[in-house]
């Protein structure tokens, strides 16, 4: 890490204030300067990014956060975008993907990894407190075998582990719940709060189902943080409300926080508030874009989710247009969850279309022949 040069987009201003305590006006004043700095930084350090900017961006600095140029998330799948010299030591993060599907590849160096960790800490400690709690990872230990090329799931778990102690990996390699291990852990830490982390689908399928079967596990002193989307669970008709209610009923677990995040902006998690909505941390922002004009959508209007974050330095990922749909619910309304800033919800993935051609897929102008 180069300690001589001043840090680009320092995180201190965002981390010294409590998370979700910055109003939009204050937050955007800070963010705008740093995001503009990052656009320039990546332009200088990444030939590919500079080329994209030259063709797509106006060249002028953004005057609003909404004007910061963005990259489509798919570009991280097709091209390896890096702002670090090849000679430097980096880790390659990959997103999860079904077989045959291209995955995102993210280059992370020591400095960016550190920023990601600090950013994540700000969010996690907001719900877990500053002290490390005994932690249950609802995953398998074998996930972390290869440190040089890590999947997003592995990086997510590893990132979370530093906020806990006396870690228990709750699942065996075959995904079966280690019931003995769980009972021992809960007995050992009977008097303290505990933290739990896992991917939403895994929590439901490999943890909740087993707890329901056992019937006598008490997690009323637990706080669960989970992520991964509701798509898989939609097939089983399990939504956020069902998820929370079921866990509460079966083991008393009531502090449950979902978050939205992605490998392209690891460290930046949009954490659920008590009102069930998602909130960006101080150093990140969300913009919902109208899918026809690509301009910022009005509050309540569903559009494509655009995420910004001041964390990424080793790769040009500070402004990314996702393939998810979402809607802003309100801005600076602390009544719901005691949080300032933007509150939004994720609607789901934009449906993946494969152009098939054929005459009628787009039946244009039904009332007239060509």
């Amino acid at each position, binding site marked *: 890490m180069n300690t001589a040069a001043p840090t680009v987009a320092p995180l201190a201003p965002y981390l010294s204030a409590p998370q979700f305590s910055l109003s939009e006006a204050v937050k955007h004043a800070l963010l705008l300067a740093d995001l503009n700095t990052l656009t320039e930084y990546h332009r200088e350090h990444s030939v590919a990014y500079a080329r994209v900017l030259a*063709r797509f961006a106006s060249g002028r600095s953004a005057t609003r956060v909404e004007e910061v140029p963005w990259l*489509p998330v798919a570009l991280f799948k097709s091209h390896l975008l890096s702002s670090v010299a090849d000679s430097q030591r980096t880790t390659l993060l990959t997103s999860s993907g079904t077989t045959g599907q291209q995955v995102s590849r993210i280059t992370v160096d020591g400095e960016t990894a550190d920023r990601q960790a600090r950013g994540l800490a700000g969010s996690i400690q907001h719900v877990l407190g500053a002290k490390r709690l005994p932690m249950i990872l609802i995953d398998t230990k074998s996930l972390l075998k290869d440190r040089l090329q890590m999947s997003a799931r592995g990086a997510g778990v590893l990132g979370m582990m530093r906020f806990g102690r006396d870690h228990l990996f709750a699942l065996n390699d075959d995904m079966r719940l280690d019931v003995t291990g769980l009972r021992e852990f809960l007995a050992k830490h009977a008097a303290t709060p505990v933290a739990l982390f896992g991917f939403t689908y895994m929590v439901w399928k490999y943890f909740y189902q087993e707890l329901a079967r056992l019937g006598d596990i008490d997690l009323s002193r637990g706080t669960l943080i989970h992520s991964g989307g509701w798509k898989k669970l939609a097939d089983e008709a399990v939504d956020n409300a069902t998820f929370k209610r079921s866990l509460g009923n079966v083991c008393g677990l009531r502090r449950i926080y979902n978050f939205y995040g992605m490998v392209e902006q690891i460290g930046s998690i949009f954490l659920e508030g008590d009102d069930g909505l998602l909130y960006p941390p101080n150093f990140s922002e969300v913009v919902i874009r109208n*899918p026809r004009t690509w301009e910022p959508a009005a509050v309540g209007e569903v559009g494509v989710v655009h995420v910004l974050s001041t964390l990424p330095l080793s790769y040009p990922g500070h402004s990314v247009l996702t393939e998810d749909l979402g809607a802003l619910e309100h801005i600076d309304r602390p009544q719901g969850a005691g949080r300032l800033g933007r509150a939004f919800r994720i609607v789901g993935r934009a449906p993946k*279309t494969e152009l098939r051609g054929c*005459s009628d897929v*787009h039946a244009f102008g039904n009332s007239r022949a060509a």
Partner: protein
Amino acid sequence: MTTVLRILPSVGVTDLHALLDSLVRAPAHRPFAEPLVQFAAELSVRLLSDREARTIPALQALGFWTRLSALQRLRAGWDAGQGRDAVAVPRGLVFHIPPGNVDTIFVYSWLLSLLVGNRNVIRLPSQETRAIGILCRIMGEMFAAAPAVAAGTAILRYGHDDHITAALSAACDLRVIWGGDRTVRHIRGLPLAPHASEIAFADRFSLSALDASAVTALTPNALEELARRFFNDSYWFDQLGCSSPRIVVWIGSAAAVVQASETFFKALARAVKEKAYEVDVGTALGKIAYSHRAVLDLPVSAVRQLSNELLVLQLDPPCVPRADLYGAGTFFETRLEQLADLAQFVRRQDQTLTVFGFTTASTRELAVTINGAGIDRIVPVGEALSFHHLWDGNDLLRSFTRLVHVGV
């Protein structure tokens, strides 16, 4: 026993070998026999008047192509082309494998083959489109009233079943494979009978060449008309047809082209709106991702996204990218000084070049200069997708018949 789903002449699950048997034994017609021409002409009448068919431009184009006057011209041309020492006769049983990206092709292929007297078996893919649904309804009614034609036709629907395809391949006298390189390679793995022939349509690429000055000189009405024609060429079939233009080659000086390009694509954007062609979010995101990849992989000098439906990627220095193309209104554009300069960029897989603003002489000169390196047809903007029996270098009427030499 192998069964297969037959859609036409009537719906039913049938034994494959019994089906082939009955097709082989069906009465053979002579090329351009009256019942065949009448049947094809009747299809035209139905398509042009049917309420549902009228909502689909590609079906209207098909109806127009197979109208009686066009068929009569086709027959007249056929008769005039007959040699004195040969009699043209049907090949027998023709097996058609249509492409997945243009759902009306199977009808053109089948009709041409039917007109020259062949019996036909056609494989339709599992996924039915609205156009195919409408065609099957209309044709079902027509077959019920024309048993002689029905006896010699079988339209089947099955998934990727090599077993069935192999049986049909072994039984036919001619196999026609549409659908591009991958399909052709796969089907070629299934043998034909030794006496049988094959026509294969590989991956093709198509372009448009526009004279900048001519475009700029157009009156507003004429410009809108040109844009509408270009729309028909490029947006039908989501720009995925082999004849759909993927690149606009501007001919003219740099200054002339800048002006012409802006004028033209704005007019095209208006035509797109007028025709209410819209892409969904997934496609729009796909195009955005594509444009970014293109900027990194190709000499893209400028990107213009006029709307989700119209993306223009300028290439400088001039080149013609043929791999990894996107559709639904994604156009490359480049500039050359003279039309003849296009010749050096032409490749074997180039099929259709639509043109506007050039004299017949300069167009012919281009074909001469290209000298066979590629390009099978040069037609005016608006006719890219017009089917013609001269296709991809084949005279399909000739391909679907064989000649008996009568030397006495």
